[in-house]
């Protein structure tokens, strides 16, 4: 543990000078981000993460902890890198050609980008829900059972049934679909599809769930249901949500991180960010001057 921390700090000190250049900031830390980037009980930690798409520098030196059983929201204008950052956490960027990630990201103190780390195992622990609901063109049951099946989690059909039911229940979808589990998941409404995708993600019992603007394709009622669900899921999971809706961030999250052009500008308690932002850019964004 200590050894790991040592290397992480070393990796981050190289940019200490940049923080000094920022005037009028009460709290400074080694990555130039305003606010408390570390937490007491971190589940995932990132230190000095840079992401490049070919020549494009998409994420610049981001350091941030994600605490256990918290909902952390990433906000910022379009193209600020918040989704890219999210996709680094379970190495979904591996599938993007020309994408390069440097720096350190750990899950339970194990380096995610280590050669020893298997992306299959990582993604079983760090699930993801996408912007557009993307159920498989298969029956609802098979959608949920897909993850447990490929990982060999359920020992028997009965156990699999149980996993499917409990996942759907936790996603608040069970009562709506229990009579038509054999019908294709693509036949559900948008909101139901997204909850199906959440149920599919929690069926493999991940530790962290990443959500990439999960409500952007949904109407307000469906959005409200998902938000309710996120709040409930916080009991068991760590949730990292990217949203372009500040209201949503305010409603569901405990901490909020503000990204701007690939920089992590400010992190803090959600109430503090929205009521008393410390950085000028955060304030401008919150008050709607751009974005």
């Amino acid at each position, binding site marked *: 543990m200590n050894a790991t921390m040592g290397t992480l700090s070393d990796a981050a000190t190289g940019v200490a000078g940049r923080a000094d250049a920022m005037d009028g900031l009460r709290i400074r830390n080694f990555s130039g981000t305003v606010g408390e980037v570390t937490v007491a009980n971190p589940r995932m930690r990132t230190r000095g993460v840079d992401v490049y798409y070919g020549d494009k520098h998409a994420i610049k030196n981001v350091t941030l902890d994600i605490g256990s*059983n918290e909902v952390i929201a990433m906000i910022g204008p379009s193209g600020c890198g918040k989704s890219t950052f999210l996709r680094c956490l379970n190495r979904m960027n591996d599938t993007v050609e020309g994408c390069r990630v440097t720096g350190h990201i750990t899950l339970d103190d194990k380096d995610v980008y280590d050669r020893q780390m*298997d992306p*299959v*195992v990582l993604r*079983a*622990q760090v699930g993801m829900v996408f912007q557009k609901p993307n159920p498989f063109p298969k029956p609802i049951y098979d959608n949920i059972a897909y993850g447990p099946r*490929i*990982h*060999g*989690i359920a020992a028997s059909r009965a156990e699999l049934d*149980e*996993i499917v039911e*409990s996942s759907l*229940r*936790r996603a608040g979808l069970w009562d709506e679909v229990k009579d038509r589990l054999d019908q294709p998941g693509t036949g559900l409404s948008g909101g139901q599809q997204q909850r199906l995708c959440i149920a599919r993600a929690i069926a*493999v*019992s991940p*530790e962290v769930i990443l959500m990439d603007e999960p409500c952007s394709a949904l109407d307000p009622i469906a959005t409200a249901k998902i938000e309710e669900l996120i709040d*409930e899921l916080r*009991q*068991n999971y760590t949730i990292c949500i990217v949203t372009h809706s500040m209201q949503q961030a305010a409603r569901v999250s405990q901490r909020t991180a503000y990204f701007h052009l690939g920089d992590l500008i400010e992190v803090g308690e959600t109430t503090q960010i929205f009521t008393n932002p410390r950085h000028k850019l955060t304030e401008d964004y919150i008050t709607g001057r751009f974005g």
Partner: protein
Amino acid sequence: MSDDNPSSAGAPRRRTIDAVRASLPRRYAKERRFRLTGRLAVLTGLAFVGSLFLSIILNGYTGFEQTYLKVQVTFDQEALDPEGRRDPAALAGADYAALVKRAMQAAFPDVSGRSELRELFGMVSSGAEYQLQDMVKADPSLVGTTRDLWLIASDDVDMVMKGHIDRRVPEDQRRVSDRVLGWLDVLEKKGAVDTRFNWRFFTNGDSREPELAGIGGAVMGSFYTLLVCLVISFPIGVAAAVYLEEFAPKNRLTDLIEVNINNLAAVPSIVFGLLGLAVLINFFGMPRSAPVVGGLVLALMVLPTIIIAGRAALKSVPPSIREAALGVGASKMQTVFHHVLPLAMPGMMTGMIIGMAHALGETAPLLMIGMVAFVVDVPKGFFDPSTLLPVQIYLWADSPERAFVEKTAAAIIVLLAFLIAMNALAVYLRKRFERRW
């Protein structure tokens, strides 16, 4: 699994990760197997390409060469021009075959007996007499002289020299007798056997004698046929593409035409041959074996390809160009013909070249309209009986003589060279004029 108790959530989570870890070796083994199968499939495909080309080239490269025998020929005044008037007609009608025979006999004076002599004379091609005839025609002063000449060897001798007839095979199972091999060895020791580039292969028409057969007639036939095909299919294809893409209203008729074109593109080519036979030849009474009929049939066959490519090319022209032209008061027709069509032209040309390459390689429909005739003369027009390169290949492939195998493969090499050139041109056009809007 209990639902709302965070403390108990740890237990199943551990189980999950353990299960994942436990299943990993099996899953990665499957992954490797799957990837290996895929790689094998690609490699198999590539191996097929390789063996196809290798088989053709190995069989065919010798087809571009021809064995010649050096023989001392006496242009006997008595035999050729007894009256000494050097009359071209008399010179042309003289018995050159006898000259060849006498020359061969002179080379091997101790050969006698009818069957032996026939074998000896058989070493030289029947084309050798025409060789001599042409020489005398070009230079009548040759008469009365004696020259060392390289005469075309017969196909059997050619095959022996190229190693296609195995000397180790017992005599009764081989086409060439031990005697002939002996004579050949004698000639070879004298340096009187040589293998040279076979330019006749490119100029001659078909022949029953493999050493005289060439693709000249077939190439010209293909040229005339493709010209007809091009002249008919390209304007019609472009016009149809323009109408369907730019002017056609969305209605049942347009839908029908679209479905029709897509289906025609997948109709077996032989069916177009049946159409040509029933309509063009039997109903309209057009001549069989003529490039004009072949070109018409092929034009109907490649039309869907050209239309589909043309529409794709028109589709890739951005609407802003049309709006710009319409905005300055051009009519719809002017917009299309002055602005959209020129921009889409490279794409259409590409489609046309690919269609022509397709037509060049097509055989089956041409069999139906009688283009399988044995045509010795090189065709000189659109109505002359002719054969085409792929049909020539088919005819030779069917011939029993061993020497036609290499001719067939050589003709295939020429055909593939044409196709590769056409496709390369299409790729070049696409690259050269490719626009990113």
